[in-house]
C-alpha cells in the first residue's frame, strides 16, 4: 500500500515541478518568476523527503533542511535586489 501511495506522490510532485517550470519560463513578471523558483525549492524538498522514504534512509533529512534555508535566503535576496537595487544596505 505504501509503495502505491509513494509512486502516486512521486508523480504528483514531478507534475508540480513541471507546472512550476512552465510558470518560470512563461513569466510574465519578475514576481512570478521569483515565486515559481521559491515553489520549485519547496517541491524539491518534497522530492528529497519522498526519496528518503523510498530508500528508507535517514540521511536525506540534512539535505532537505539545508535546501529549505538556502531557498529562503535566495528568495529574500532576489526580492531585496528588485526592491532596493542592493541586497545588504
Amino acid at each position, binding site marked *: *500500500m*505504501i509503495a*502505491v*501511495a*509513494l509512486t*502516486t*506522490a*512521486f*508523480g*504528483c*510532485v514531478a*507534475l*508540480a*515541478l513541471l*507546472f*512550476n517550470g*512552465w*510558470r518560470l519560463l512563461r513569466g*510574465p*513578471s*519578475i*514576481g*512570478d518568476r*521569483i*515565486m*515559481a523558483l*521559491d*515553489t520549485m525549492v*519547496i*517541491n524539491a*524538498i*518534497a522530492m528529497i*523527503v*519522498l526519496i*528518503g*522514504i523510498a530508500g*528508507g534512509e*535517514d540521511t536525506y*533529512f540534512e539535505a*532537505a*533542511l539545508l535546501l*529549505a*534555508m538556502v531557498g*529562503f535566503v535566495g*528568495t*529574500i535576496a532576489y*526580492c*531585496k535586489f*528588485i*526592491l*532596493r*537595487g542592493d541586497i545588504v544596505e
Partner: protein
Amino acid sequence: MTMAADIAIAALLLLGGAFVLIGSWGLVRLRTTMERLHGPTKATTLGLGALLLASVVFFQAKAGVWTVHELLISLFLFITAPIAANMIAKVHLHRLHTGAIAEPTSIAGPPPRLDGSDWATFEAPSPDAPTATAER
C-alpha cells in the same frame, strides 16, 4: 510494520502529494500575480507538512523510535513561507507602482495606494518615519 501505521503513512503521502500538486496547479491556472501568490504559499506548504509527517511516522514504524527532526523543516517552512510571500507581494506592488508591468486587475481590485508615498521602494524615507525603520 502494523496495519494502522501503513494506512496512516499511505494517507499522509496521498494528502501531501495532492496538496503540493494543487498549489502548483494554482500557480499555473490563476490569472494575476496576487491571485497566483495564494497557491504556493498555502497549499504547497501544507502539502510538504503532510509529507514530512508521513516521513516521521514511517521512520517510527521502521526503527521504533520517535524522531522529530523532520518537524524542524516543517517549523522552518511555516515561519519563512509568509515572509517570502510578503517580499514577493512587495516586489509586485513596487513594479506595478513604477509602471514596469501592466496586468488586468484581479477580483480584489487594485491595491490601496498610500497618499503620495510608497513603501519598500527606492524612495527616501518620509521625514516622520519612526527611527526603527529609517535612520535619520
